[in-house]
């Protein structure tokens, strides 16, 4: 039995449907829910926290908590926009839960959070005078002060200045360990996911498309939609390589495709192609060629090639090796 189990969890509000979500999340796992905006990520987090009406089951430590009110679940929530209470100062925000819950060793916990998240200078400040990063630290401290077992993070990095993102990603990992949490982190950024996650679930249009270990999901997308979302390029039917199955697809990285206007490259697969376009971008060319009505996108370094194959319509040869192909 998993630590947190979602069984056929569904929720419909207005026109959006969260559709039969099944997930198993283990204790102390850093679980990333990856999806584009509008895919239902935040809705799923809110449903886990009990903030939306839903059907299906949420089982936490073998106990069905689906009918529990949000205040009875041991869940902390940090919203993308932080949702700090404007009528309270920083310290009052952090200590909000102490009015409603008995917090074990609250003094020690408060001091530790203030110290770890570097909030000492901010405690008496009004929240409107804080920067994005400061607001985030306060929001995290507020959630952790209620001693949650599960921490839900809704796009925690998107409202943060890009220069601080790496250091904040590192602190998120540290917080997860230090406070003995099971974290569910929602994002649209797969780099963020690959750095933080033990496990990743891809969500699209309210449906979970793929769940698995971080490296499996990121390297072996389960379907074309997931592959496109993860930034895979050159996705074509495997019949192009001579396979008989028409339902399989393959993808090849634009950086590993060889191209020549003179002779066939020595590769496992080679094709004669028609050059459609070539664009010079800083240190490389982006080349678009057509093979049997499929457009390949190729990136080549300027220093390795002499100029672009400028004339559209010219014949060129392209090639790539078996080891560089990923099947979908």
């Amino acid at each position: 039995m998993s630590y947190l189990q979602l069984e056929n969890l569904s929720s419909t509000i207005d026109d959006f449907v969260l559709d039969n979500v099944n997930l198993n999340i283990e204790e102390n796992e850093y679980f990333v829910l990856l999806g584009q905006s509008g895919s239902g990520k935040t809705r799923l987090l809110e449903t886990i926290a009990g903030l939306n009406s839903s059907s299906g089951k949420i089982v936490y430590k073998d106990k069905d908590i689906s009918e529990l009110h949000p205040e009875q679940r041991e869940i902390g929530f940090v919203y993308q926009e932080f949702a700090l209470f404007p009528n309270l100062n920083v310290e009052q925000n952090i200590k909000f839960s102490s009015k409603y819950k008995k917090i074990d060793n609250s003094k020690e916990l408060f001091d530790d959070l203030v110290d770890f998240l570097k909030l000492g200078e901010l405690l008496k400040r009004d929240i409107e005078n804080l920067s994005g990063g400061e607001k985030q630290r306060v929001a995290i401290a507020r959630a952790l002060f209620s001693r949650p077992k599960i921490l839900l993070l809704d796009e925690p990095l998107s409202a943060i200045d890009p220069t601080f993102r790496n250091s904040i990603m590192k602190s998120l990992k540290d917080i997860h360990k230090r406070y003995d949490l099971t974290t569910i982190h929602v994002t649209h950024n797969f780099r963020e996911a690959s750095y933080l996650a033990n496990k990743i679930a891809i969500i699209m249009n309210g449906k979970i498309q793929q769940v698995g270990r971080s490296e499996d999901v990121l390297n072996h997308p389960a379907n074309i939609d997931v592959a496109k979302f993860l930034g895979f390029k050159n996705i074509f039917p495997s019949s192009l390589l001579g396979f008989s199955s028409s339902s399989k697809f393959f993808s090849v990285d634009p950086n590993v495709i060889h191209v020549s206007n003179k002779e066939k490259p020595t590769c496992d697969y080679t094709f004669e192609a028609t050059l459609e376009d070539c664009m010079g971008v800083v240190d490389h060319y982006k080349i678009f060629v057509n093979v049997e009505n499929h457009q390949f996108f190729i990136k080549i370094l300027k220093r390795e090639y002499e100029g672009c194959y400028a004339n559209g319509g010219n014949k060129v040869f392209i090639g790539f090796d078996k080891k560089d192909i990923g099947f979908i």
Partner: protein
Amino acid sequence: MQKKSFTVLLITLAFIIVFFLSVPILKMFVGVGSDKLIETIKDGEVLASIWLTMKVSAWAMMFVLITGLPLAYIIARYNFPGRSLIESIIDIPVMIPHTAAGIALLTTFGDTFLGDFFKFFGIEFVGTEYGIMIAMMFLSAPFLINSAKDGFRKVDVKLEKVARTLGASPISVFFRITIPNAKKDIINGALMMWSRGLGEFGAVVILVYHPMTTPVLIFDRFNSYGLSFSAPVAAVIIGFSVLVFLAVRFATSRLK
């Protein structure tokens, strides 16, 4: 050159309306003279009517704070069939003539089944402070409800959601997060309702001539004795209203 003449035009037109809005009020105090004003302030009947008007308008405001805030919150937060209808119903009193509203209230709470129902509990509306209260409330409640509704809409629903995950029950969230963050609009609406209630004449006079609220007293003195007897009363109620209004504004601006 063209720009300058446009600016002059703007300022001139703006000045006309400011002049129109402010001069009658100033004229009230300057024209009446201090002797008359002091004499009026000492007049027991005037003071009693001012106290009555302020007190009953405050009751009406309190009643709508208790019943109207939940309504405003429901409208601001939930999407339900009939919401626009309810919003229109709230706005109706603003649009109808006040004397017509008085007649409507009389035909509802006067010598009717509903009137008898309240009489059973010792509450009568014709010729009583209760009558003044419902007349004021009927016509000025929309100011408080609509302002509170706007205030609640400005409070991000995520604040309420986070508060729930931090252990607060829905009622604690309402009192500790929602109301404090919509406070400004609620106070403005309440003040607006109270001050509109002070000025209510048309509906009040139909339900309750005695005891006299200040607008009824002004009308009565104007009718019986003329301008020189009614103007000081008008000046005094305007003065009192402005004082209370400024005091409340000052006090609330110092609240966090």
